[in-house]
C-alpha cells in the first residue's frame, strides 16, 4: 500500500513536471511521463493497487489537460493491462523491451485519445499532423521509458525492503490481472 502511495506521488510529480515542460518544449518532444509511470506501476505494483494508482493518475491527467474527464484514466487502465499481459511472455523490465513497448503503446494511446474525443463529439478524427506528433513522441517515450520504469521500480523496491522484514518473506513478481502468479 505504501509503495502504491509513493508511486502515486511520483506519478503526480511527473504529471506536474510534464505540464511545466510543455510550456517550453514542443508537444512532440515532451515525454508522456504519466504513461511511463503507469507502465512502471504495472510492472512493479500489485494488480489491485496498480489499477487504482493508474486510474487516479489518469483522472489527474484529465483534470490538468483539455481531455474529457475519464479519457486518460480509461486508456491508462488499458495500458496497465497490456503491460501486465505482455510481461507474462516477455521480460518487460529489461531496457529494450521496455523501450519498445513504450514506443508501441504511446501512439496507440494517442490514437485512442483522438478516437474517444471523436466518438464523444469533442474533437476531429486523427489527421496527418497529429499522427506525426504521435510518431515523434513515441520515440521520445521509448528513450525515456527504461529510466522512468526503473525509477518506479526503485521506489516500489525501497518500500518492499523496508516492509519485508515485517512481512517475513518475498513479495515475488506482481500478479497479472485475474490471478496470482508465483515468483520466477
Amino acid at each position: 500500500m505504501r509503495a502504491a502511495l509513493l508511486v502515486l506521488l511520483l506519478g503526480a510529480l511527473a504529471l506536474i513536471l510534464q505540464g511545466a515542460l510543455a510550456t517550453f518544449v514542443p508537444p512532440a518532444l515532451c515525454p508522456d511521463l504519466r504513461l511511463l509511470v503507469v507502465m512502471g506501476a504495472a510492472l512493479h505494483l500489485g494488480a489491485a493497487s496498480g489499477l487504482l494508482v493508474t486510474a487516479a493518475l489518469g483522472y489527474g491527467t484529465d483534470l490538468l489537460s483539455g481531455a474529457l474527464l475519464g479519457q486518460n484514466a480509461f486508456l491508462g487502465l488499458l495500458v496497465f493491462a497490456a503491460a501486465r499481459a505482455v510481461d507474462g511472455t516477455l521480460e518487460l523490465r529489461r531496457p529494450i523491451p521496455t523501450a519498445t513497448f513504450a514506443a508501441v503503446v504511446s501512439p496507440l494511446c494517442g490514437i485512442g485519445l483522438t478516437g474517444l474525443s471523436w466518438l464523444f463529439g469533442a474533437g476531429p478524427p486523427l489527421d496527418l499532423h497529429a499522427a506525426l506528433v504521435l510518431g515523434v513522441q513515441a520515440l521520445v517515450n521509448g528513450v525515456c521509458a527504461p529510466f522512468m520504469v526503473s525509477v518506479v521500480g526503485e521506489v516500489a523496491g525501497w518500500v518492499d525492503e523496508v516492509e519485508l522484514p515485517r512481512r517475513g518473506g518475498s513479495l515475488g513478481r506482481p500478479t497479472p490481472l485475474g490471478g496470482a502468479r508465483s515468483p520466477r
Partner: protein
Amino acid sequence: MSELLERLRVPVLFAALLLLSLATMTADRRAMRSAGRELPTFSGALLEVAAPVQRVVTAPVDLVRDFWRGYVALVDVQAENERLRGRVAALQEENLQYREALLESGRLREVAALRDEFQVDMVTAQVVGGEVSPLLRSVLLDRGRVQGLLSGMPVVTGQGLAGLVTGTAPHAARAMLLLDRQSAVDGMIQRSRAPGIVHGQGTRELRFEFAVRGDDVQVGDEVITSGLGGVYPKGLRIGEVVEVSKPDARLLQEARVRPSVDFQRLEQVYVMRWRSPTMELLYSDEDESAPRASRSGARPGS
C-alpha cells in the same frame, strides 16, 4: 467460494474502473454541452497544487529565456530598429490615409464607440503550465474563480484572441487555445466582412473554413471574431490570411491563417470578465458565489 472471490477481485475492479471512466467521460461531455465545467473544490485541488509547483519548475527556464531575450538576442537590434522605423513611418502614412477615409465615410464615430464597448474588466493571468497531451492545446493559468474567472470567458493578449476558459478551480484555471483541434471560432475577414469559421489544427496555424467561394478573401487579410457564435465578442483579432485555396469542385473556399498571438511565447494573458448572453444561459447552473462580471460590465460586440 472465497478463493473464487479472491480471483475475481482484480478483474471486477478493472471492469468497474473502466466503466467508471466511461461514465465520467459521458457526464463530462454532457456538462460541456449543457452546463458549466467549473470544477468542484475536491477535484480542483490538483489544479490548485499544480499551478504554484509548475511556476516554480518553470522559473529557472523563464530566467534564462528572459536573459536571452534581454541581452543575447539584442545583438541584431540596431538593424532591426532601422527596419522597424521605416515600417512605422510607412504605417503612419497608411494610417493617416485610413483615418481620412474613415472620417469621410462617417465611420470613425462607430469605431470609437466600438472601442469604448471593449472596455471590459480584465484579469491578468500568468501561464504556468502547458498541455500534458501532445494532441491538445490548452494552458494552465494561475488565476481562478476567486479572481472572478469562469468557464466561457475569452482569453486575450495584446496581440489578439488566445482562447477560452474551459475549467476553473478557486485559484487556477484551464484555458483552451485557438490552436486546439476542438476550437472553432466564428470569424470574418475584416476588410470584406466575409464570414467563416476559424478552426484550430493542432499545429501553429489556423484554418478559415466555410467561406463562400465568391467571398472576397485575400492573402494578408486580417481575420477577426464576428461575434455570431455567442462565445467571443465581436472584433477581436484572430490572425492574418497567409494562403487561400479554392478547390475546383467545391462551393466553399478555405484559407490558412497565421494567428496574431504568438503561442510559442505565451506567458501572460488577460481574461475578459465577460460572457455573452448565450454563454450566460449555457453556464447558468454554475457556482453562484463567483463574481458575475458580465452582468455588471459592458457588453462588447454583438
